[in-house]
């Protein structure tokens, strides 16, 4: 795998702070990371350590105070927000179609979203409005919308936090299938050591804020063999837990 030439994203010495009572709150302090083409990287770390801030910087929603963000302006980025951000006045299908129209032809968009809605069990709800959906269905729609633009970079902020276990596994499987066939890169923020070791090629453990990367773990076990019976997976999970992540 000749990854060195294919970084889709590089952050160099990123600093970010916010105005807070009695001065400024430093959130990121010289954080650097590189994400390669077709790679899945999990970001884990204590609550409130700046992981969401990092995703928002990459998504272009926040400016850095200092440091450099290397990312092609053409890089097609999708974002699965922690709380679904759906337009309540648009139907399930219209929510997806709206963002697709900026990237895909209308035929391609229609076929692809039909398939995704079918696979996630939302096809029957395509004319429903978000307020009529359950929390889990909204989370699914949030994910479907992100996948539906055929992203090159998928940002996910604790995407499966509020869905039940069975659905979580189903959605994780869907993401892996899509990622395998389309070879996009994923940056995943998660609180779950299990999710991190199940999905990621690399796990980055962040410190408490101001955040820097404490440790970087590359997972060599192929995904189908990843279970706690596997020695590497068990060790990595423990290490993530020790870093005070699973809360």
């Amino acid at each position, binding site marked *: 795998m000749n990854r060195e030439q294919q970084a889709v994203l590089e952050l160099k010495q990123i600093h970010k702070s916010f105005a807070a009572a009695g001065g400024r709150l430093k959130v990121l302090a010289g954080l650097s990371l590189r994400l390669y083409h077709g790679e899945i990287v999990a970001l884990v770390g204590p609550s409130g350590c700046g992981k969401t801030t990092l995703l928002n910087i990459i*998504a*272009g*929603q926040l400016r850095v105070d200092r440091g450099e963000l290397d990312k092609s302006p053409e890089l097609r*980025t*999708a*974002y699965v*927000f922690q*709380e679904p*951000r759906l*337009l*309540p*006045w*648009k139907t399930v299908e219209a929510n997806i179609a*709206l*963002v697709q129209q*900026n*990237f895909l032809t209308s035929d391609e968009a229609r076929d692809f979203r039909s398939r995704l809605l079918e696979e996630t069990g939302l096809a029957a709800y395509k004319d*429903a*409005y*978000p*307020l*009529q959906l359950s929390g889990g269905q909204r989370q699914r729609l949030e994910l479907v919308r992100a996948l539906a*633009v055929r992203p090159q970079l998928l940002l996910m902020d604790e995407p499966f936090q509020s869905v039940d276990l069975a659905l979580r596994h189903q959605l994780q499987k869907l993401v892996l299938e899509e990622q395998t066939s389309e070879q996009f890169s994923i940056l995943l923020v998660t609180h779950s050591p299990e999710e991190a070791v199940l999905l990621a090629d690399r796990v980055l453990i962040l410190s408490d804020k101001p955040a820097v990367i404490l440790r970087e773990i590359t997972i060599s076990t192929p995904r189908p063999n990843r279970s706690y019976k596997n020695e590497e997976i068990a060790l990595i999970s423990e290490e993530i837990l020790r870093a005070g992540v699973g809360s």
Partner: protein
Amino acid sequence: MRNSIFTKAAISAAGILAVLALWQALAAKYPPLILPSPVETLEALVELWQSGRLWANSLITFQRTLAGFGLAFLAGIAVALTLHAFSFCRWMLQPLITIVQIIPPVVWIILAVIWFGVAKDTTVIFLVFVVTFPVVFINVFSGFGGIDAKLVEMAEVYRCSPAQVIIHVYLPSLLPHLVSAASVGLAFAWKSAVFAEFIGSSSGVGFALSMAYSNLETEKVFAWTVILIVVMFAFEYGVLGAAKRRATRWVHHE
């Protein structure tokens, strides 16, 4: 659900009938000059209808109301948008709008007559505008505050253009506020149009009211009042009711 709607309608109808009965009972005790009966009011209505004055005056008032309110609606949206976008305008203009709202309508109508004269449409339209503009502005401006910044961010991440953000995020968020501005504003608009015509015009429902008053035709005062009530009801429950349901379809849709 169906039942409860009918029940509510029946109770409302009963209430109106009770008031009519009370009105009839009281009217039997007083001369028509003080309190004309429902029947006398109806006769006056028929007479106004047959003479053609009902439609002629109603139409004039209707046109003036819509002209004044239409201008206020557009100006209210434009000013709310400007104040939302530029905070220095907010600090400068917001106190002024409050002052416009505080000044009693009677002061405005005196000024309007002085500035524009009696018998001019402008006088009436001006008063309608001045009274309803703050109502529209306040509703729409508060609507801007209710726009969910997270949805705007989402749209931007997916590269929606400013036009797409306005059409798909801003407008649907504002729509309930626009409808409510129209609803409250139009009620004020009617009342102020009639008031302006009463004092400073020689046509329209307000002028007809002032003529009935001068000629001691109390039954016509009642007849015109009934017309105003019917028109406002038709607007509120017909046009605006439909608009309200349309604006919030996604909340109630089942």
